């Protein structure tokens, strides 16, 4: 077990592409740190630099009190689980799991003990003499895990290890993985593009975009207090509603109503570069059906009425999509066209340019497709963002 410290870790390829730009991260002993972000954000490159499979262009990588920039992968004592498992197809499960221990020149008895122990933990004992081709996807994934576990390394590095599994198995393995990591208490860096995996597995989550670290924090922190538009848009499913707003007199004009300026919003606007326009964010679960009692119906807050264009019944709840009566594209406000927004890694913002709003409503809501609905929200739930820097302006210190 050990601590990993990344100081300004940078990767620039020969063709000039900057894949990771000055990544600073401290990963505590036994911590499970999730690197999350869209495809091409540099998370896998960062992991490969930690593994030693990718040369570090600039910055420092520390494992406990040793700088390991120049150390070969085999000397770093880390184990990696690959997206496609990378099991040696010509070896049995037992040989796959023993390979690393043989390289470490452990005694045969010790190798057999560790393999048997890991196989028991992962429910692989009866498959030890099979080859990977004879195993199911879930079993292969467990062998890949087993190969890492038996080494008892200082850190686990996992590169989207669940992405090749079907949805049901992925959920099952996610729980399994969390249990094993918790039991072993090994420092883990886990890369995923799936924000649900990030939210459920991580002690802390580092959100990356375009090679740049956007925010690090606990899953709840990222969800409740996203530092910028990108994090707000990336974390949460369905994604946060991002709407353009402008200050008029003593209120904030938004496409879903007029929000009176209270002290919190006034402070937020005071921090804006320009007061003429901001972006407000509202989570889908913070839009409430005004017709419902027991959910704060007919209470305070701002109400508005809109037509439901699409209604998705999710089993435990509804996702109701509403067309906005008027809207200005958020990306446009930030001075970006759609392509620029996507390239800048704020594609969740670009996605929300459609002028659509989504609300998560309970099953007892009387919402109907292609019917009107009155929704209500508490202005205290609003996040306010600067459209130019993307920075969150509300509650900066919380």
């Amino acid at each position, binding site marked *: 077990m050990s601590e990993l410290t990344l100081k300004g870790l940078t990767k620039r390829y020969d063709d000039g592409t900057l894949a990771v730009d000055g990544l600073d991260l401290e990963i505590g002993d036994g911590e499970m740190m999730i690197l999350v972000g869209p495809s091409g954000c540099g998370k896998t490159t960062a992991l490969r630099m930690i593994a030693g499979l990718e040369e570090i262009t600039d910055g420092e990588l520390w494992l406990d009190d040793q700088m390991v920039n120049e150390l*070969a992968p085999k000397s770093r004592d880390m184990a*990696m689980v690959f997206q496609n498992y*990378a099991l040696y*197809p010509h070896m049995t499960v037992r040989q796959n799991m023993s390979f690393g221990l043989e*390289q*470490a020149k452990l005694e045969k008895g010790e190798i057999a003990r560790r393999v048997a122990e890991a196989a028991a933990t992962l429910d692989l004992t009866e498959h030890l003499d099979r080859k990977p081709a004879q195993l199911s996807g879930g079993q292969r994934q467990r062998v890949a895990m087993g190969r890492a576990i038996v080494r008892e390394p200082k850190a686990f590095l996992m590169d989207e290890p669940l992405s090749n599994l079907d949805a049901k198995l992925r959920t099952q393995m996610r729980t399994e993985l969390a249990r094993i990591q918790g039991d072993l208490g090994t420092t883990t860096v886990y890369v995923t593009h799936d924000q649900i995996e990030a939210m459920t597995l991580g002690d802390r989550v580092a959100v990356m975009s375009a090679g740049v670290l956007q925010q690090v924090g606990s899953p709840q922190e990222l969800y409740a207090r996203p530092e910028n538009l990108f994090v707000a848009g990336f974390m949460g499913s369905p994604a946060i509603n991002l709407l353009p707003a402008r200050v008029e007199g003593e209120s904030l004009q938004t496409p879903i109503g007029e929000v009176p300026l209270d002290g919190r919003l006034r402070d937020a606007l005071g921090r804006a570069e320009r007061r003429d326009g901001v972006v407000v964010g509202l989570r889908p679960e913070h839009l409430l059906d005004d017709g419902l009692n027991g959910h704060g119906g007919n209470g305070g807050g701002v109400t508005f009425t809109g037509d439901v264009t699409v209604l998705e019944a999710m089993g435990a709840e509804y996702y109701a999509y509403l067309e906005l009566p008027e809207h200005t594209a958020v990306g446009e406000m930030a001075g970006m066209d759609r392509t620029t927004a996507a390239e800048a890694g704020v594609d969740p913002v670009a996605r929300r340019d459609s002028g659509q709003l989504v609300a998560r409503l309970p099953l007892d809501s009387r919402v109907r497709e292609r019917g009107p609905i009155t929704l209500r929200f508490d202005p205290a739930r609003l996040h306010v963002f600067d459209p130019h820097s993307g920075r969150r302006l509300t509650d900066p210190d919380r």
Partner: protein
Amino acid sequence: MSAAAVRSSTAGRRSRPLSQRVFPHVITGVMIALALLWLAPVLWAIDTAVKAEPDTIKIPATWAIPHLTFSAFSTDFSASDIGRWYINSAIVSLLVTVFTVITASMAGYALSRQRFRGQNLLYGAILAGIMIPPQALMVPLFREFQAIHGLNTYWALVLPQVPSPVAVFIFKKFFDGQPPELDQAARMDGASWWTCYRRIALPLSRSAVAAVSIFTFVWTWNNFLWPFLSSTNTPMMTIPVGLGTVIPGEGITNALVMASAILGALPLVVVFLFGQRQIVEGVAGTGLK
């Protein structure tokens, strides 16, 4: 099968268009014709080899064998050191094959997996070697081995035949097709580059190893020019060179020539029978013929 199922399957066959029903038979016919075309010279060689020499020049030529005789084969055995030549050919072909597979696979692996300065230039230079006809190298090679007094040794027969740009190319392409994560996983597991090559990459390249081995073995076994130049002592000759010396320069020797050719090719037939599957896979996989 129930009556209904039989009826439905018969109906299914009937409903197939005529072209689909006839096509497989046409293909089979063409394949048989081509096989006979390829087989005819081999059968003719056997036919000639078991005839008496005067019968081989009768006009018109005929498949009929008036007097079955194996005298051509016995001449090959009695008038020569054929046993020794077989051993020489086997030793040389095996050594060349083993050395070629080892060196070419290592070179192919390094070119596929390592990144180093001048890599493309080096690979280009190796590939350029394909374009140099082996005959052009004969005189310099001969003079080199002559200078080091290496002629009429196994080294002279083996070493110049080992470097094979085509084999390097085949192995590089094969390793390029292997997922790099396998190597990376092995490196994370603590393996050195050598272990990655030996324990992971090479065992997964069996079809490339088989293809290169078979082609190299056959090529070396059949090679005439270099062994002819480098082995002037009869006991050091290989089969193609040695059998050439059995045939006298004058008189009718058709049966003897054919018997020698059959004896020379016989081990390759054995190789083919045992390695049929790998040869087919090798041809399909590497595009070599």
